[in-house]
């Protein structure tokens, strides 16, 4: 299979890329790692007339500290994230999640920017970014907009990105040093999208949950933030009754599709189990 015809551009700067996107209009797509877009082009599910390859823009790569935030360039690959000591130390949930994405070859090419900007509900990073309270930097000819991950996703493959805009970076507030975390992903086989997955970041105080946020992957048209489920465990010691309440609150907002990964009922059921496991695992890791 070969993609349909298109014109290819490789700008050297973000400004040049944004200029191209504005000039080429709706028929242009930015190309990051290409491991979602190129397969879709081969199947004619995407037929862009122009591809703007961001690979040559050095400023879009890398991980840096900016005050109490970690800023990750959009073209940073999953492999780069796994190789980063800073990520392993400051954002260990990002390390844990990156290991669960696809396979080694895909992780060398796949970027965090592409993963979050594509709007695919099966991708793992959107729920994680919502859970961490991350902000996306969207850059267009009008300048830079900062949009919280929690407000970015509007539907499957529909996001807050305006035509001509490129997602250039992701800013993640550094979690408390004593936080606990877990990303629990049920999948049919290694490399698969989640049947159901849950991200948890929490802090404990005196054996009770002090703060908590919970994100859900592939259990609706977009990644979800399970606020009610998180509220259900704050102030508790994660006893069985509280865990069950959290799972029920999370299941109440899930609306998964039925597909080869299971029926909607099954996926909601295991989604609740992922929430419980992630809460327990995160609590065990909290200091």
């Amino acid at each position, binding site marked *: 299979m070969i993609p349909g015809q298109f014109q*290819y551009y490789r700008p050297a700067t973000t400004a040049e890329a944004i200029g191209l996107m504005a000039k080429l209009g709706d028929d242009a797509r930015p190309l990051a790692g290409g*491991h979602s877009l190129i397969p879709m082009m081969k199947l004619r599910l995407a037929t862009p007339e122009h591809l703007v390859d961001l690979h040559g823009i050095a400023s879009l790569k890398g991980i840096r500290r900016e005050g109490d935030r970690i800023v990750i360039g959009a073209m940073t690959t999953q492999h780069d994230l796994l190789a980063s000591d800073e990520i392993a130390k400051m954002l260990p949930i990002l390390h844990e999640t990156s290991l669960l994405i696809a396979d080694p070859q*895909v992780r060398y090419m796949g970027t965090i920017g592409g993963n979050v900007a594509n709007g695919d509900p099966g991708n793992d990073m959107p729920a994680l970014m919502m859970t961490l309270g991350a902000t996306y930097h969207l850059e267009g000819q009008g300048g830079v907009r900062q949009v919280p991950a929690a407000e970015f996703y509007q539907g499957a493959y529909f996001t807050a990105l305006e035509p001509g805009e490129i997602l250039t970076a992701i800013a993640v507030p550094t979690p408390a040093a004593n936080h606990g975390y877990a990303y629990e992903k049920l999948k049919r086989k290694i490399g698969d999208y989640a049947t159901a997955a849950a991200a948890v970041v929490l802090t404990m105080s005196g054996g009770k949950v002090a703060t908590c946020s919970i994100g859900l992957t592939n259990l609706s048209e977009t990644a979800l933030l399970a606020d009610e489920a998180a509220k259900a465990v704050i102030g508790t010691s994660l006893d069985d009754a509280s865990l069950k309440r959290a799972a029920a609150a999370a299941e109440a907002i899930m609306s998964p599709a039925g597909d080869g990964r299971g029926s909607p009922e099954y996926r909601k059921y295991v989604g609740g189990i992922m929430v419980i496991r992630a809460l327990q695992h995160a609590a065990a890791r909290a200091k």
Partner: protein
Amino acid sequence: MAKTHVTMRVNGAEVEGLVEPRTLLVHFIRENLQMTGTHIGCDTTHCGACTVDLNGMSVKSCTVLAVQAEGAEISTIEGMANADGTLSALQEGFRMMHGLQCGFCTPGMIVRAHRLLQENTSPTEEEIRFGIAGNLCRCTGYQNIVRAIQYAAAKINGVEFQEAAE
């Protein structure tokens, strides 16, 4: 559609060609360069038969455009043997440990295992299995592929290969 001029180094040699932007790297390698050791298996980024080494990364060349590889350093299965033409430690391992049956996945397996051993010279069995998770084999059940990679790691490290106790 206007063609684009691309240059890259493949197995140490400068190569160039004119390609449509939509030409996949695997087609450039197999058809323009006539190096057919790199296989097309699933053509959907799953099976890893088309794996090549690109700038120190294992990539599935059915999912990379040839134009994306402009200026890149690429190694394929044709570049895996020792400089004097003898089998590399990995090739020898696949031969000695019966790491292939039909052989279709083998080029991708060896190119991937080559990068894995560059990054981790003494991987555990679990690290090997995780490291080749992007390569599918429908014959061996992976058992002898894992042994082949363990054999190669031992040889590269200058130690005797010892089978793990069953």
